[in-house]
Structures are given as C-alpha cells and as structure tokens.
C-alpha cells in the first residue's frame, strides 16, 4: 500500500462546506478519514458537533451517503446500513460510524459494544474532544482529570472534572475486535494509515482519534494541530494499535515534553495547581509503565 501523506493523498474532497468553528480538530479528522475511505462511503453520525454542522437543510456537507443517527445509536445504525447493503448485494462500499467522545464512551457505548460483538463489517471512528461540545462543553466520560467544563466547574472545592478518562481503546480491544487504534490529528499520516488499515479490515474496526477543540478548550484556532501533537509528545495521549489479539505502541518516546506546557496553553486547564499537575504526571507515568510492560514484545 502506498504511504498516505500530503504528497500521495488525492485532492478529492467528500466533506466540506460545513459550519464547524475555524480550527475544529474534529472536522479535520472527518475530512481526512473521508478522503481515505472515498466516494462509496456510507457515514452514520449521531447528534454532536459534526452532525450539527453538516446536515443543515438544504446545505449538506457530505458528498457521499451520510445520515444522522439517534444519539445513542451510531453502532446500531451503521450495522443496519452495512447489513442492508449486504442483503441487497451492493458491494464495494464502506460503512462508518463517526461519533464524539460522549456519543462513544457514554450514551452510545452499548450500541458500539453490540456492533463489535456482532463483528459487523463497519468502521467506528470516535472523535475525542474530551467533552460534550455541541451542547456547550459539558463533562463526558472522556473528560480528563482537572478539566474545567460547564458541568465540572473548577473552584475552591474541586479542580474541575475529578474522574479519569475511560479507557475506550482497551475496553474496545477487550471485545476481541478485529482492529483498533488510537490516533491524533497532530500525527495525520499515522491517522491516515490507520483509517486505510481499518478500510482493509473485514469485521469491525475502531479508531479513537484525539481532536482538539478551540472553542471548548480555550486556545487560538491555529494551535489545533500543535496541541494535538503536544498531547502525544507529553504522553497524555498515545498512538497504539490492537490487531490479532496484540497491542502495539506506535510511538514510544524516550522522554516526554512538559505536561504543564500542554495544559497551560488551554483555558480549560489554566486553574490547575502544581499539585494537580504532579498528579496528572503521576497518572501518565503509571499508564506508560503499564503500556510499555504489557504491550512491548
């Protein structure tokens, strides 16, 4: 397979003219995923920013087939599309469910689990901006510790969100899924390669892509890609794959860039104390120790 990058990727667009904010990481992920998947894609998107900005009658942002699903139903609708196409004998298509962190880790979790259980031939793309953005930046199950959101305010008593991110990648892998990966829009070539791999996979694949959101995180729009990189470089996010029953770290940096630099660039974390930051670092180190011990040969 040709390595996909800025030079080799074609100039066709299948997702444009939407009304996402400038600098939206989520729409960047969608645009690139659609370029890899191509014109025969059927996309299913639940409620969330991407559905809200892409299907405003009469302006439709997908040039391929696409539909909004009930919020909880991404996995089930995508399965239904794939089953319908198969039953009708329509070949050469790719069905993809594309849901936010809330739509994936919270309300859509059950339907996602059902789809993986059936091993339906779909891709599930989770676009993680770490909060319910479309409804105005509320805490989700993937909001990390110490995040100020509109329902996890930071104040004298609480540092914002007090929970850890649910570990969706490993939860999905624990289903014995055909293919799963994490990615970041900061490392686009890696993301493109993973989407291409998911496309080749028969059965269910899951890609969890990290997508900064200038509006919800409080940073200038031009910093989306650099923050998406910084999350990986500081070790707060990681690039990995799960295939044929085995985990693999795609990037295993010898040292991390400072967590504080990443955090302090965003208003959602600006209230964090030294102590909070040490706590976040400690959790990061424990996570990496586990990943390195368990996943590396």
């Amino acid at each position, binding site marked *: 397979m040709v390595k996909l990058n800025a030079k080799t990727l074609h100039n066709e667009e299948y997702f444009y003219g939407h009304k996402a904010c400038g600098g939206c990481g989520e729409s960047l992920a969608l645009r690139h995923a659609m370029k890899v998947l191509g014109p025969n894609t059927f996309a299913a998107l639940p409620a969330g920013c991407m559905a809200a900005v892409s299907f405003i009658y009469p302006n439709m942002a997908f040039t391929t087939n696409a539909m909004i699903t009930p919020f909880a139903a991404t996995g089930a609708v995508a399965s239904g599309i794939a089953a*319908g196409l198969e*039953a009708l004998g329509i070949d050469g298509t790719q069905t993809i469910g594309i849901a936010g962190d809330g739509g994936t880790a919270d309300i859509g979790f059950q339907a996602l689990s059902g789809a993986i259980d059936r091993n339906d031939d779909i891709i599930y793309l989770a676009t993680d901006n770490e909060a319910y953005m479309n409804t105005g930046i509320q805490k989700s199950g993937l909001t990390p510790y110490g995040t100020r959101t509109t329902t996890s305010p930071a104040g004298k008593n609480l540092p914002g969100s007090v929970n850890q991110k649910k570990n969706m990648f490993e939860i999905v892998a624990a289903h014995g899924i055909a293919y799963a990966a994490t990615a970041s829009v900061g490392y686009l070539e890696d993301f493109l390669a993973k989407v291409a791999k998911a496309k080749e996979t028969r059965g269910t694949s899951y890609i969890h892509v990290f997508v900064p959101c200038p509006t919800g995180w409080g940073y200038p729009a031009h910093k989306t890609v650099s923050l998406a990189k910084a999350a990986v470089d500081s070790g707060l996010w990681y690039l990995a794959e799960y295939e044929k029953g085995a985990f693999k770290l795609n990037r295993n940096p010898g040292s991390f860039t400072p967590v504080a630099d990443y955090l302090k660039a965003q208003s959602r974390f600006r209230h964090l104390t030294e102590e909070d930051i040490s706590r976040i670092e400690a959790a990061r180190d424990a996570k990496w120790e586990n990943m390195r011990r368990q996943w590396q040969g």
Partner: protein
Amino acid sequence: MSGVKRFICGDEAVAEGVRLARPHVVSAYPITPQTIVVERLSEYVEEGSLKARYMHVESEHSAMSCAIGASSVGARAFTATSSQGLLYMAETLPYASGARLPIVMMNANRSIATPWNIYGDQMDAMFLLNSGWIQYYVEDAQEALDMMIQGYRLAEDPEVMTPVMINVDGFVLTHTYELVEIPLQEAVDGFLPPLKMPLNSMSLESPKSLCISAGNDTNMEFNMKQHFDMLRSASAIEAVDRAFGETFGRTYHGALEAIDTEDARVVLITAGTVTGTARGVVKALRAAGKKVGLIKLRVLRPFPVQRLIEALKGVEAVGVLDKNISFGYEGTIFTNVNSALMAGQMSPKTLGFIGGIGGRDITKANLEEAYGKLFEVLEGADLDRVQYLNVRCDY
C-alpha cells in the same frame, strides 16, 4: 389461491407473515409476550427458509436503529417489541417516520410498569400514537399474519412511505392457538413485490444525506408534509385491504369494520381482540331484539374520522372501550372518537368504558353491562362520562 391451514399461536402467525413478506433485515430484542416471534424468525433464518440477516442487537433502541439503517439503503426491515421495549425505543420511532422509512413493526400489547405486569392492555402503543407511525390493532391470528403482508405493501406505497406498527394483544392473542391459513408464497410475492429502491434511499448512484436537520424556516413544512401524507394514507389503507381481498379472498374492511350499525341505536367501539367477545354479545342482544351495533376500529393513526362519521350516522349512543388510561383524563380512543363526532357535527350520547388494564378480563357480562348503560343514558340516566369495567376497588 388458498394456502395450508395450521394450528398456531398469534406470535407464530406474525412470524409466518413476516417470513412471507421476505424482509432483508430482522433486528429485534426479546421481551414477553413478543419472544416467540423472534425465536421463530431466527429459526427460519437458521434453516434458510427466510433469507435475511438476523441482527442480535443489544436493546430495542438499537433494534429500531438498526432497522432504520437497513431501511435507509432500501432494504426491507422488520422488528418486533412490546411494552417496556416499545418505550425504550420511543426516541427512534419519530426518527423512522420523519425520515419516511417504510419499516414494519409488530408490537405485542402489554401493560407498562410500574406496577410490573406482563399481560395485555394497550397503554404501550398509546404512548406512541403521536410518533408518526400508522397504527393497526388486530383481532385474531389470521389478521395478525395478513397484516404483516398488508403492512409492507402500505408502508412502501410511494405515496405513503410511512412506517407501520401492527398491534397484537399480549397473551390473549400472542399466545392463543387458532387455525390459521398460511398464504402461498407465490401469491404473497405477487401482492408484495420486492421493494423498489425508494426515492429517499441512500444509494451509490445518487448519494444522499438522510435524517437531516431543518431549522425554523423549513421545519414546520417537513412536519406538514409528513402529516398530510399520513392523512392521505387513509385511502391507501382501504385500497391495500381491497387488493388483499382480491388476491387472498378475505378483507378486513379497511380502517374499521361496522357490524350491525345500520339500524343500531347504540354502538360500542372496540380495538383488538376484545372485538371477538363483543361480536358474540351483539349477536345475543340482537337476538333479544336490542338494536345494538359494533365498530371494530382497526386503525388509530391515521384516525378514520370520515368512516366513523358514516358508520355512526343516526346512532343515538356511542360507547368506546379503551384498554388504556390517559392518566388525568380518560381513555385515549374515547377522546379521539368524541373529536370525530364533533367534526361530523353529530351529538349522540357518549360513554367511555375503561377495562382490561394489566390483563384484567373483559367478559361478555362486562360488555352487556356496557350496552345496558348506553341504553340507560338514552332513557335519561345521568351517568359518569367514563365507566370502569370489572374494577375491584373504590375510586
């Protein structure tokens, strides 16, 4: 063309009807008293007598969502549920109807918790009366089977394109065995040809965005179009039933069946299996010289206003039997019938009868009592507008 006769229960009749309708995708989640339907359908898929994908979804919400996905690409989709399951999938019902997807669903009518109860009343379907689905209520197993076939023909009519819910009374019908004629597959194939790719389907030739959002500048228009197509589907309901009669030799009189109403002074309106009991009561009362009639209301949405007005011309007192309570008011069908009478500028006396809640029996004696009360009202008695049948507490 007549098929073979078999002694089967209501749920099995539904499954036979669905098999004959040849859906591409069946997605369902088990719930009493619907379970036999999905068990039979999965057996048919296993043995190959039904060439469909059976989707083991993890909930009713996903059952309907999966059907929505399949239907959106032009596949014929089926699901079945009941009670808590119907309410659990509630969000997805207007979703399917708004997207104009011709899905057919069987609902085994069952009580709603709490208190928990698995027996039949019709509270579940009433919750979804406003969901944009055509709603049928059937009387016996033969009608249950036949309506699966009629249901798809109606739902897929290009002028209708509206999902159809067939309500089958829990246990009294789902689990009761009757002799049922299974139509021949060739006859069904003639009556119900394969679904032609509907105009609104997603397809490779003509990619589409579905289930879109429409702001306040267009939203009302989308809803109006859906509403008026549903109203107009009233004529398709009659036409499909007539065509069914031409092929299979039996019809159900469209949206309602009027029994002995022509010269009747009092008429009772029923929906579902209790109609069978009422037929016997009417026969007996007629034999005793009482001018009574019966209307079997088969369709609640679109509400057959004109047909009701015609059937009730000259009737002096109308009773409506509701196996549901709209808490804080009265039976839902009663409200609808009174409104239809107003529309027809008719003013017979009316009484609502609420019974059968949580599977409580509605006996012949109860129905005789109901007819009796209607006559009492005609003689000037001042009775409560809503009467409760076979209740064991003070209220």
